[in-house]
């Protein structure tokens, strides 16, 4: 299900318009936020990929997230927007239980992926994270070669039975991340030697290599220049056909460019969520409107 229509068209050119969707990109599931689901072109079909109910996150005594309820559809891009410190990254990190690595963090409520709660004791975060990949704010390639960076995931999860298969995974991941042409001749040079934008695409390739179902992106372009940003946004648009992508971003323009659905967080609460176009043209909550029109941020 690759993008056929506009793989080369820069999202920047499209301005505020929604990215052109491929005809068969109809697997959108409804966003159940309010009792009355909003009518939208992408009609609600089937179960959401990720279903969060009453999610609260605490850091020690401090509550960072209040009762978040959201549904995230498969095979589409959902953007989390909101001012800094509003809890959007916190929520993102609780989807693949990265908050486990912070000793004082505590998550309540349920986050279900395909109907299975990720916060259950019986859930192995190792397995969970192999299904839910993550890309961080700052490109963080391991201080290893480009090849080893991408091969890391398949190696630890035992996804390849031999060298040939591993090389095939690496190659296809790098191709999907649009990096293959740039690095094919220097796979065995350190990944840290790439430019910032290339590093971020390398990290995306690394995440793709374990064939996750969900990819979480925590402000993936905030450390990049505009051209590299455009390249990543294009890539996100291409990947949408295969993965459920959740992206945290500061830039409303970016949210408008890459996402089909948008959720607005403010002071630890999910204010509203819905189809991107609608959110930007006709927000229901005044806080969303204020934020989008730049009254605060």
């Amino acid at each position: 299900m690759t993008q056929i229509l506009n793989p080369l068209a820069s999202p920047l050119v499209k301005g505020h318009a929604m990215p052109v969707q491929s005809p068969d990109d109809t697997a959108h599931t409804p966003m159940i936020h309010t009792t009355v689901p909003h009518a939208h072109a992408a009609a609600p079909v089937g179960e959401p990929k990720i279903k969060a109910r009453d999610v609260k996150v605490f850091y020690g005594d401090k509550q960072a997230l209040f009762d978040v309820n959201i549904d995230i559809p498969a095979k589409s891009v959902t953007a989390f927007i909101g001012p800094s410190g509003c809890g959007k990254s916190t929520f993102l990190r609780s989807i693949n239980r990265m908050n486990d690595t912070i000793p004082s963090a505590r998550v309540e409520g349920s986050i279900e992926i395909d109907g299975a709660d990720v916060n259950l004791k019986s859930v192995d975060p190792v397995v969970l994270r192999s299904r839910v990949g993550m890309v961080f704010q700052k490109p963080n390639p391991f201080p290893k070669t480009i090849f080893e960076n991408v091969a890391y995931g398949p190696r630890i999860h035992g996804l390849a039975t031999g060298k040939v298969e591993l090389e095939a995974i690496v190659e296809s991941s790098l191709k999907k991340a649009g990096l293959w042409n740039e690095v094919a001749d220097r796979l065995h040079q350190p990944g840290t030697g790439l430019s910032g934008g290339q590093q971020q695409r390398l990290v995306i390739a690394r995440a793709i290599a374990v064939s996750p179902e969900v990819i979480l992106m925590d402000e993936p372009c905030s450390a990049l220049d505009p051209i590299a940003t455009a390249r990543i946004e294009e890539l996100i648009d291409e990947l949408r056909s295969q993965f459920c992508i959740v992206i945290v971003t500061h830039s409303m323009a970016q949210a408008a460019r890459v996402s089909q659905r948008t959720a607005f967080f403010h002071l630890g609460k999910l204010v509203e969520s819905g189809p991107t176009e609608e959110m930007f043209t006709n927000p229901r909550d005044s806080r969303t409107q204020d934020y989008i029109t730049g009254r605060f941020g």
Partner: protein
Amino acid sequence: MTDATFGAAPPRSAASTAMEARLKKRHRSERIFKAQGLAAIIVALVFLVVLVGRIVSQGYTTFESHTLSVPVYLNPDRIDRSDLTGVNYDYIVAEAMMKKLGVQDDDLGTVSTKVQDLVSRDFGFQLLNKIKADPSLIGKTITVSGSLKADADLYFKGEIKRSTAEGDRKLDNQQLDWLEQLRKSGAIKSGFNFAFFTNSDSTEPEQAGVLGAVVGSAMMLIITALIAVPVGVLAATYLEEFAPKNRWTDIIEVNINNLAAVPSIVYGLLGLALFINWLNVPRSSPLVGGLVLALMALPTVIIATRSALKAVPPSIREAALGVGASKTQTVFHHVLPLAMPGVMTGAILSLAHALGETAPLLMIGMVSFVPGVPEGFTGAATVLPVQVFIWENASERAFHERTAAAIIVLLVFMIVMNAAAVIMRRRFERRW
């Protein structure tokens, strides 16, 4: 993609049992690795417990000692008034003890010799001093008390056992019987061993104490502190605040970092060649020891001061310069006082380290036997760690007990200094 859990098996996979097996293996290796880490910590802590426990168990008995009080008749027949120092006081003490025990000396003097082996020679010196002070005591009976000889002391502490074959122990059965008899009669009492803290080194274990070594250590540390702290702080201030960044200061910096890692014994060789042979500083003196340790502590003081100065934010400097203070005023009125807690913490820690240092002091003649408190900064002295080394080398068993006790004293001093540093850090350190 409808598996209800993530824990049991990764979904999608066709060979899900293989994946499951692999996952199990991964988690097992995780547990093993974590257990290895924990084991390493436990091993390190066990070493600490064994080390400290062993030393305490070997040394604590020193703090108890057994003293004998016995009435001594100062027999005028045995005391030559014209030659008081030539009198055999030990025999007079032995006589008094034999009387107390109700035994008679034989012609060869074996009984009196055996009795003398039970008490310290200190008794004899006490008699001499008392008579010297007041000759009218001659002919009277006075009560003298003093410590038992180390072997007798060890018997009461259970270190020498009756079950050991008679030939293998220092005291024979008869002597042990006497000791029991004296204790039953109340002549031998046990108490806190004050003498260990008020005496200096001695060839007789029961007389040996740590006072001389403690005073020697203190004097040496004073010298070290007076040199290393000001010079180190000023040097660090220059390097951190004033020095231009060029090749020379780079060399100085590399040089200081390396000096901090030079083996301490090399400083001893430097002290021997430079201070003793070239500058003729007296050997074995607190002065030369303090100088050597000062050179050794200097790099650590500099490094600690520099990091304390680095922690003071530039805004403080800018604020002071902004109101028209000169660079020197800025540093000495604002930056250095703010860095002082860190500086003092570092200084105390390096002084504590210097207190425990032994090897370089062996090079500058501090291993000599020094009975008594050092006479001054240029007199012969010994220090605590060297005292430990000297006693450890002694063959008498009683010295091993004292070695451990001296270590306890040394450790107490070091813990006090470290605690002072920690408290200072906690109380005054500010986070910017």
